[in-house]
């Protein structure tokens, strides 16, 4: 079992990612190695709890871009939805979207860290 195989099982679109990275799997894996720190740096949920929705929006927007570039499709979709809801001033619905994918995000981060 390889990292990309495991991530594919967790919903990552590996074909799409490799196309994005010019077929360079090594480069893709190196960039995946940076994802745990990126997620930690742009933590979203605590900002909902403190009511700082601007910070929640900024970080959700950041992670949307990162997940998109790495083709982690379910997380990309969840952060996209959360950003749209925050822009529509619907923080509660946005928080639900994030809460829903946090377990999957944890699995993905754990998986990457296992190979780091």
């Amino acid at each position, binding site marked *: 079992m390889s990292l990309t195989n495991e991530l594919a099982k967790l919903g990552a679109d590996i074909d799409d990612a490799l*196309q*994005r*990275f*010019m077929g360079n799997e090594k*480069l893709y894996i*190196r*960039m995946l190695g*940076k*994802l745990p*720190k*990126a997620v930690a*740096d*742009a933590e979203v949920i605590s900002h909902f709890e403190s009511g700082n929705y601007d910070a929640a929006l*900024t970080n959700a*927007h*950041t992670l*949307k*871009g*990162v997940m*998109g*570039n*790495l*083709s982690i499709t379910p997380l*990309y979709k969840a952060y*996209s939805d959360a*950003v*749209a809801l925050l*822009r529509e001033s619907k923080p509660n619905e946005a928080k639900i979207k994030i809460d829903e994918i946090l377990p999957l995000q944890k699995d993905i981060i754990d998986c990457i860290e296992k190979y780091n």
Partner: protein
Amino acid sequence: MKQTILIVDDMEINRAILAEGFGDDYNILEAENGHQAMEIINSTENISAVLLDLVMPEMDGLGVLHRMNKNGKISQIPVFIITAADSAQMMMDAYNMGAVDVISKPFMINFLKCRVGNIIELYRRRNDLESIVDEQVKRLNKYNQSLVEILATLVEFRDCESGEHVKRICGLTEILMTAVSDMFPEYHLPKHEIDKIVSSSVLHDIGKICIPDAILNKPGKLTKEEFEVMKQHTVMGCQILTNIPDVMDKAIYNYSYDICRHHHERWDGRGYPDGLKGDEISIWSQVVSVVDVYDALVSPRVYKDPFDHETSVKMICGGECGTFNPKVLEAFNSSIDKIKAYRIQAD
């Protein structure tokens, strides 16, 4: 030599993806917020493109565009917005502030490289063309000015002068016009306009080509009738200029025409050909009047020996050569040392 790209994104992972994608073909600079980006943009020459995230801490992408508009860099460096596009308004704002392209995350690195590379190449060709055109315009202006000077010098040789008078008029006009402009705000002119006036002053006597030798080179005092013919050189000069408008640019043509016609007008209305009075006479024609009289006084002529500098200044300021604008005379007096030094150097 590799060209340089600046990548601006607060997320290291995004910078790393772009740096990996572009690193083989370009030198890469990185900034993690707008402030750092502006420091690099302002201190680094020859950045070929900026890849700019919109949402960042400290200063965001729109802030960077705003500052690049203020310092003019936006017209020199193509800026690509790379964003997880979720606000149409922000993207529109970025375009309106001069971004050349907005690229949505997630992106395909190959396509991105093509889009960025194409625009960099377009900018490079544009910059090359601009410098070629600048160089050609400079050369053309130089040729035109040479042509104008040749014309003026030919006229002067007929006047039994060496051709130095027209060159001295240029130097003296520059000194006095600058002094008038600096001392009197109502006559202030920017340096580039003064340069045009200086170039134009060379043609002030071109109409003398139409004056018969017997009058132009008469050693003694002219009769009343002869003087009437001599006065025609102002009007004839303008007629010559109207036949060669394309030799010089429009502004120099206009200054030349005005100076040619009015450099013998006087402040009290007793000059010629139109009898203009006071500020009806343009300030540049007033300036050329004074320096033309000064140079005529200090130079030998067929009809007189040269006066020394001090006597010439006294004659001008004492009204012996007609009445001049008191402000121009004040500027003339304040520039006496420069004028004398220029005159000595020209001799």
